[in-house]
């Protein structure tokens, strides 16, 4: 025993040393190969990411909030979820609905803070609305002028004894095709019409744009991305010749009374979450704020103008701030299956066929002015927040500030794999026309055409891998 004891240490050391060196060297080799390709990193929201793939995945606050914000988050949540009622009401904190509107609550369309869907069989309030405008612009702000009788948006619900503006009817035309490998596909092209118009004709040159409600996660992070970073992604004249020409939208900031960079909304027409939320309150629910203190009633709609309001404004500044906090601090769920070989393969393809040129994979946030937890995070939103021409097929033919009728903002892809779980549907794109992720890819035209073609030319196995990657986000 003692003899053994003297010998073991000596041999053990050289054996351990050899093993140790092997480990260290292979560790270096492994991490080098990871760095060369893609780092599997499921923390889409950086340190603010949460792990949740349940139906409540989109409703969690960002970790690391200051205690006061933690608490106010819940108040913001209550305003986001609550049904507004018509004024006057015994429940005075929440009256002032309408008189015409699209939903009684934010959550009605952004159900569980998720993605809205187009209506089926004449339903209303499922999360799609129609923006309206005429080709002229406001001289000062550059905004589209509203339809004279119907305003900037069709409101398809109204208070008792008041007529809703109209109803949206969607018909789908099938577009079929085949991949080069013979696999068939089918897309549905929506055709929109408005019926039951209650306040006269729409303008002859009215422009309509359908929009579904976007998921509310990660918005504070996006707001914290420095302007310089977004602009660094832009290449309006395609100077680098890669076929991608993202450009910023410059939009009217109502409070600053100035033109600034836009980054929120399907065409990046909102500059910040405060204005976005206030505009949604006003246009979608009929609730006034200090940002938009005038009710959304076109001049011809007397009943709307004469309807009682719920105070001035109908949601006070503090409470609006809590809603802004809420929509700023909903956490991004972590990527699922990030180390699944199929997902990893899909991510490589995502880069190879050029998706990542617009759906930028990673960036840093700067200093958030009020919420430290959102500052200096490495995030993976898969967007450049810029406008891109997506071709005729997807066009709404309705310009919005600098955005043309064929341009759309690159939507963030984080969370898209959870719509099924959170919202019980898998409708994608600005009007939910794509029934799944594959269809969404097939709709990419214009600047996205090359990537779409490359996708079509992939083997079925590779296509499946790419979709699996998207599903993991």
């Amino acid at each position: 025993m003692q003899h053994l004891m003297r010998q073991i240490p000596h041999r053990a050391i050289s054996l351990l040393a050899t093993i140790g060196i092997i480990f260290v060297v292979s560790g270096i080799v492994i991490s080098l190969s990871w760095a060369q390709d893609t780092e599997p990193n499921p923390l889409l929201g950086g340190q603010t990411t949460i792990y949740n793939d349940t139906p409540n995945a989109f409703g969690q606050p960002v970790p690391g909030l200051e205690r006061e914000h933690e608490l106010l988050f819940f108040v913001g949540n209550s305003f986001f979820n609550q049904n507004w009622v018509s004024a006057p009401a015994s429940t005075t904190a929440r009256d002032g609905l309408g008189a015409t509107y699209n939903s009684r609550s934010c959550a009605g369309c952004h159900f569980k803070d998720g993605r809205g869907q187009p209506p089926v069989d004449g339903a209303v309030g499922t999360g799609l609305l129609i923006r309206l405008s005429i080709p002229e612009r406001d001289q000062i702000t550059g905004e589209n002028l509203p339809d004279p009788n119907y305003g900037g948006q069709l409101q398809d619900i109204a208070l008792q004894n008041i007529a809703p503006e109209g109803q949206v009817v969607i018909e789908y035309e099938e577009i079929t095709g085949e991949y080069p490998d013979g696999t068939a596909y089918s897309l549905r092209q929506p055709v929109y019409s408005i019926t039951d118009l209650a306040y006269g004709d729409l303008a002859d040159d009215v422009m309509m744009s359908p929009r579904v409600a976007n998921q509310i996660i990660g918005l504070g992070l996006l707001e914290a991305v420095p302007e310089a970073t977004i602009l660094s992604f832009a290449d309006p004249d395609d100077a680098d010749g890669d076929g991608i020409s993202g450009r910023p939208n410059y939009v009217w900031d109502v409070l600053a009374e100035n033109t600034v960079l836009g980054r929120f909304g399907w065409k990046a027409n909102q500059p910040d979450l405060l204005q976005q939320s206030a505009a949604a309150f006003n246009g979608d629910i009929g609730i006034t704020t200090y940002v938009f203190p005038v009710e959304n009633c076109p001049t011809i709609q007397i009943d709307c103008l004469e309807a009682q309001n719920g105070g001035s404004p109908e949601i006070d500044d503090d409470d609006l701030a809590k809603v802004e906090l809420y929509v700023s601090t909903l956490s991004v769920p972590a990527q699922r299956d990030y180390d699944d070989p199929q997902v990893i393969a899909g991510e490589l393809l995502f880069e190879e066929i050029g998706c990542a040129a617009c759906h930028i994979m990673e960036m840093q946030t700067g200093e958030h002015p009020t919420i430290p937890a959102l500052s200096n995070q490495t995030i993976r939103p898969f967007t450049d927040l810029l406008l891109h021409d997506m071709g005729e097929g997807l066009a709404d033919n309705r310009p919005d500030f600098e955005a043309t009728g064929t341009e759309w903002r690159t939507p963030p892809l984080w969370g898209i794999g959870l719509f099924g779980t959170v919202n019980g549907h898998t409708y994608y794109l600005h009007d939910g026309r794509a029934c799944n992720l594959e269809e969404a890819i097939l709709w990419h035209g214009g600047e996205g055409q090359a990537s779409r073609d490359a996708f079509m030319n992939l083997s079925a196995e590779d296509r499946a891998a790419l979709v699996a990657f998207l599903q993991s986000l």
Partner: protein
Amino acid sequence: MIKRTFFLLILLSISLSVAAQDDVETLKSEAIVTYADIVYTSYADSLETATTLNEALVAFVEAPSEETLDAAKEAWLVARDVYGQTEAYRFYGGPIDDEDGPEGQINAWPMDESYVDYVGGAADSGIINNPEDYPEITADLLISLNEEGGEENVATGYHAIEFLLWGQDLSADGAGERAYTDYTDADNAARRGEYLLVVGQLLVDDLQGLVDAWTPDGEDNYRAEFLALPADEALSNILTGIGVLAKSELAGERIFTAYDNQDQEDEHSCFSDNTHNDIIANAVGVINVYTGTYNAVDGTVVSGTAIADVVEAIDPDLNATMLDLLAIVETEVNAVYVPFDQAIILPDAREQVFTTVNALLDAGDEIVVVADALGLTIDTALPE
């Protein structure tokens, strides 16, 4: 000689720490079983009290009167004190709230009462007063309408029943005062009665499902699955449930929001003014889970190795701190001014409400620390 002793000492300390590690592992397994037993018994108690409630609802609808209405209300209040404790098992996708979980059907809140029945200023509102669109009130109908088009469009569950028994709370110093004649000669009285019976039975059916999921007599049920999980996963779920309930749901959504808005509509049981009991029941649920003890309705006590025991074995100081914080929670929730809708308005009462909020937040934060000490990361809304 010295080397041999040294070697043996190393061997001894290794085997001791392995043994101690074995001890902790054993405690963990036992604590997980205790948890499953508590969950089962409390759901069984919820089912029993909901069955009694349902019987009272049937008796009421068959013969509406002050007496039968009061009996139904009483049965509802009793059932709530039990169910409230079971909310500690939410938030990790267990049977109560997985993709098909019945939580939204059982306890969705807040509720826009005008979705179900008439309210002040809108005599025709609600499913009950809409025989054109909803000629027949069935369980399938109400299930499909529940949370349809908005999270506040609640059609089923405890709070729908609450509203149907108490009506809107329109007074500052009392609960709702719905007349029993709403079920005799008021408009749509018969439909109202049908509605009450349908939601009462649905509640019982939903709770039965939870009992089946957790019964020790089940073979392939969730309990079996839960007990077969790696200990760390089960513990993570257990701690997630009580952490999120304490910190987010109870402190944030249920107490602070009402405190901040000072709006009676934001209180949890706003029709019956029973919110103070809801708060206590939720807090007791958290304490039950941590201390491995549940006081059943029949007077027996379910208990065994607790999470507390596991923590004690790893870090006695941490356990002491956790128990202290839970004791503070217990004190504060029991000191909340009654009724709650006044507690959020009267200045002195408000101060104590805010103290309660902070006590729950502190406890929730500490649960995260406990999880950390057990080598777990709780994967929800709790900040570090």
